[in-house]
């Protein structure tokens, strides 16, 4: 694979109502080039004013996420060759306020994330010994399927309900709540289930699976939300009045 690739980037200064427009760049294709490499090259050799964000460049932090050819992706782990296209269209992640160009404000994501009590709240804080959960225990295997979230925000940007309702907590917050509710060492399950028993919580999910399709870590937040719905029902019908 040789030659140039065409990179179309949606640029804006982030001001409310200011028009965004596509600007086209040509970049020489390089072996094993990632989409983030291409953006970095444009910024360093063609237009220093191009705003984008990254930290680790190794698929651990997720800060480099953008919309690539209509799909939310972590750009450091998205290979240009694998896109099978000589034209790459880059837009900022949807459902976030744009700071500038490809850099979005993660504030709505983390504000909603915090509402689901994402921190571990020990059930027995002054316990003398460690509370151990064996690696092969069913509880641990259940948690394994949802615990690897890196809070990249791709799911939040893909969810159509987040797009229509600013109150909806979003896939990552609900997935995180499910992890902690499933953890027998955590003591805030009831509190979380109460918060999430709302249209802004689990009942808002319409199982479109956009978040699951967008998650770079292969997590299905939809599945976590579905399991939360069943936990909510069991919780409501088994709890004394």
């Amino acid at each position: 694979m040789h030659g140039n690739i065409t990179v179309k980037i949606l640029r804006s200064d982030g001001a409310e109502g200011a028009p965004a427009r596509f600007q086209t760049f040509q970049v020489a294709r390089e072996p094993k080039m990632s989409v983030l490499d291409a953006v970095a090259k444009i910024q360093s050799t063609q237009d220093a004013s191009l705003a984008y964000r990254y930290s680790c460049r190794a698929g651990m932090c997720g800060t480099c996420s953008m919309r690539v050819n209509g799909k939310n992706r972590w750009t450091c782990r998205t290979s240009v060759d694998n896109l099978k296209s000589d034209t790459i269209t880059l837009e900022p992640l949807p459902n976030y306020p744009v700071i500038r160009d490809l850099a979005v404000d993660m504030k709505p994501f983390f504000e909603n994330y915090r509402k689901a009590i994402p921190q571990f709240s020990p059930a027995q804080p002054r316990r003398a010994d460690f509370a151990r959960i064996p690696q092969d225990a069913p509880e641990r295997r259940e948690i394994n399927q949802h615990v690897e979230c890196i809070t990249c925000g791709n799911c939040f940007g893909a969810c159509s309900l987040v797009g229509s309702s600013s109150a909806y907590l979003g896939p990552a917050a609900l997935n995180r709540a499910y992890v902690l509710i499933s953890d027998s060492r955590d003591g805030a399950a009831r509190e979380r289930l109460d918060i999430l028993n709302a249209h802004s919580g689990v009942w808002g999910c319409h199982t479109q699976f956009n978040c699951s399709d967008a998650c770079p870590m292969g997590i299905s937040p939809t599945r976590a939300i579905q399991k939360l719905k069943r936990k909510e029902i069991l919780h409501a019908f088994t709890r004394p009045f």
Partner: protein
Amino acid sequence: MTNLITLLRRNLLPQLNVGSVSWAMHRITGVALAIYLLPHFVTINSARGGPAAFDEALGWYAGPLIAATEYLLVLAVAFHAFNGLRVIAVDFFDLSHTQKALFWGVMAACAAVLLGASFVFLPRMLAPA
């Protein structure tokens, strides 16, 4: 017109995948059937005027155009019903990983209804007025 298309696309199909398409179809058929409920109830209420009034009201539902509409309504019901079962299956059983296969099952069931319903509605649609 472009604005309307943008608006509909943003609200009904911001992503193009199996889950979104099935959801958009579920919402469109659901709204259509809810709207249909009103003229349907009005027709039924003609029964309060006695046999003659009722038979006259049922007479409105003749003609190829009505037959075509009813054909579409039956298909809308079929999709909404089968996809509704899919949604409920994914809600109550841990079937998130099979939701795409289930959607193709829904489409197969709809195809069967499409075929069966054509025997009822196509003759009415093609009959001379």
